[in-house]
């Protein structure tokens, strides 16, 4: 797509004074349908791969690559429009409503996963160890952490000491850093903004490195896998989806940093920084909750 030409803004310029507000309606775009097609390829590839179909992994890889290209193309259009200054205060408010609501849906997604952890710990594991179920599974003691009555592999749960505790401090510190970035952007302190964003990004990457080390430790030292019953499944699904969200967040921070270096984030126009900041705080809060209920309790 060609970058949108803003000359049309003047097409009814003569009557401009009549209008209280002007609203930006984007030109036709092929990115939405490209997204639809690429996602169809992606899930078709995934379905094939999961069921041992021959072209599955290849199709999946191609679709992921195309998805990245589509996202880059679509966001390049948006960034281009933003840089041309066609987004007024009303568009800015729409973006804020949109981002806030999107983060809320993410909260609900994690809500489903946390509810699962709560359910297996408080309802299904105790039930399996007591009453009628206990007659079915006589050797099962229950308690937490536990795998389940049908799994004999010994469970070595993760300790909160070491990397998880350090990661908690790292992520909290990164939250402070991105808040500092927001304050710096609003008061126009560009150097501080760059330092704060770089610090956030560095801490985010350090967190991911720490998590990778944790996974390595879990797999190779403790023999902990997705298949290791209630503990293994809930541990990996919660930390895994959180790690994925940190990766997305760190990518977003990197984009904001790049756009700051290109002087595209200004004291008056910094929706992207606020949006990324909200998102980053969201992944921080999820981690805090996760650290308490997965590691500590």
């Amino acid at each position, binding site marked *: 797509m060609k970058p*949108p030409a803003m000359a*049309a*803004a003047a*097409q*009814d310029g003569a*009557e401009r004074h*009549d*209008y*209280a*507000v*002007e*609203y930006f*309606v*984007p*030109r*036709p*775009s092929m*990115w*939405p*349908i490209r997204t*639809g*097609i690429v*996602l*169809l390829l992606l*899930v*078709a590839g*995934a*379905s094939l791969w*999961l*069921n041992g179909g021959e072209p599955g992994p290849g199709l999946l890889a191609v679709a992921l690559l195309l998805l990245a290209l589509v996202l880059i193309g*679509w966001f390049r259009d948006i960034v281009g*429009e933003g840089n041309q200054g066609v987004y007024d205060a*009303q568009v800015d408010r*729409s973006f804020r*409503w*949109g981002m806030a*609501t*999107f983060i809320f*849906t993410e*909260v*609900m*997604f994690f*809500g489903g996963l946390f*509810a*699962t952890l709560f*359910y*297996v710990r408080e*309802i*299904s*594991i105790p039930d399996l160890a007591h009453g009628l179920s206990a007659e079915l599974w006589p050797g099962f003691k229950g308690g937490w952490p536990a795998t*389940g*009555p*049908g*799994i004999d592999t010994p469970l070595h749960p993760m300790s909160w000491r070491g990397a998880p505790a350090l990661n908690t401090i790292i992520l909290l510190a990164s939250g402070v850093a991105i808040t500092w970035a927001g304050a710096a952007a609003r008061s126009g302190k560009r150097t501080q903004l760059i330092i704060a964003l770089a610090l956030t990004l560095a801490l985010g990457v350090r967190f991911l490195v720490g998590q990778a080390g944790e996974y390595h430790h879990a797999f190779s030292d403790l023999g902990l896998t*997705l*298949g290791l019953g*209630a503990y*293994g*499944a809930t541990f990996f*699904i919660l930390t895994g989806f959180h790690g994925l969200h940190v990766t997305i967040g760190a990518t977003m921070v990197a984009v904001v940093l790049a756009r700051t270096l290109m002087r595209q984030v200004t004291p008056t126009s910094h929706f992207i920084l606020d949006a990324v900041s909200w998102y980053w705080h969201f992944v921080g809060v999820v981690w805090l909750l996760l650290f308490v209920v997965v590691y500590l309790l």
Partner: protein
Amino acid sequence: MAIVVGGEGVGEARSTRKGLRYWLSSTNHKEIGTLYLAFSLSMFFVGGIFALAIRAELFQPGLQFFNPVLFNQFVTLHGMIMVFAAIMPAFVGFANWQLPLMLGAPDMAFPRLNNMSFWLLPPAAVLLVASLFVPGGAAAGGWTMYPPLSVQMGPGMDMLIFGVHLLGISSIAGAINIIATIFNMRAPGMTLMKMPIFAWTWLITAYLIVVVMPVLASVVTMLLFDRHFGTHFFNAAGGGDPVLFQHIFWYFGHPEVYILILPAFGIVSTVIPTFARKPLFGYRSMVAATIAIAFLSIWVWGHHMFTVGFPVGGQLFFMYATMLIAVPTGVKVFIWIATMWRGSMTFETPMLWAVGFIFVFLLGGITGIILACAAVDIQLQDTYYVVAHFHYVMVAGSLFALFAGAYYWLPKWTGHMCDETLGRWHFWLSMIFFNLTFFVQHFLGLAGMPRRIPDYPLQFTEFNMISSIGAFGFGLSQLLFIYVVVKCIRGGPVAGPKPWDGATGLEWTVPSPAPHHTFTKPPVVA
């Protein structure tokens, strides 16, 4: 409001040349609304073919046409397609067409995201239908996807799960768009409490979507992990529980049926005042009742699970919470009746559908209260009584309201009046055949006929025959609707800006058909 279109004269040049690329790339809320409505209407017939296949098999006892596995695949796809690909997109189509017109906005808040929401639907439909042809066939566990069945099934189940993911992304994106549009794009002076009631019902529906759709995504993701990555979320051997799936699914599933009915309430609450020529009686109460229903709907999921072995306390909680929903719903019914009271009533096609809606939806609501009673539900769980109940609220509720809305706004969309005679035929045939199909299913259910089984004992034959005849009559009657719509698009008496003399709202201040861009100047809302 001046519209800054990104590109030289794009707005005008586009309206003359409508190739394929034009429809694929549209960012216009009216065109995307049309796409949504056309898609949902075609999926309504695809889902309908599955329904007729089911009814053909059930016309007589014994196995005539389909083996039980294929029958269960039809049941599953019928449910999935009707809920996610027919009714939901139809309401989003109405929202797309009407919300900017009603709020005095130039378009939706995120026009490109709007187009993406639509273009995720055809891929999902392709996945669902194509899954019939993969080894093992389509998912056959019902639209509820309960494990352990859904953990054991073949690739069709994975395609269903991914289809649900795409549909979920689509409706979440659509809901975000609607929330931003309603909060941020209203004409100056239109406060929330001056908003048309249809916008209110959609605002509340959009919030229900963002609350429950991500939860559905999380539970089907866990299902996928149980199927392929060795987890035991829904397997007792690994400390999990199949009932956990039901809890999380119905945390989504129950609000989902309100997602399908709240916009229907909005349409009916718009149509009835028009043809009673009186303002909606108790607008504030209607808003409050809608919020109350939405709030209660996320605390009642357990009534789908009375037979899984809940403690009595849990059964009582979900039973009373469910019965409580009858209160705000009753408020709505009284509001509609009070709106008609001493009104100067006429019964054009949209009004027939709206009044018919009240009658049949009320029957579905009453059987809902009966089923809410845990002691009764334990007898009726998974019988045709439940099938009759939810078709009375889904077909006679959501679908009839959609028809009311379609006949009401088609003149605005096409510029022509619909064929009134054919519209009335469509209504009366649908009404008669609908009741023929589903009323007898109450008796079948009470007598103990289970659902999702292709065969039945001889004593159920008569009622099943009546139901099947009704279903084919109902299905054929819907072809009339296609004819009426096509006829309305191609010509007919010219509809002025306001074809219904009792109608109120900003959408009736613009010409019919509504021009490509509307409200380039913010309308004055007193």
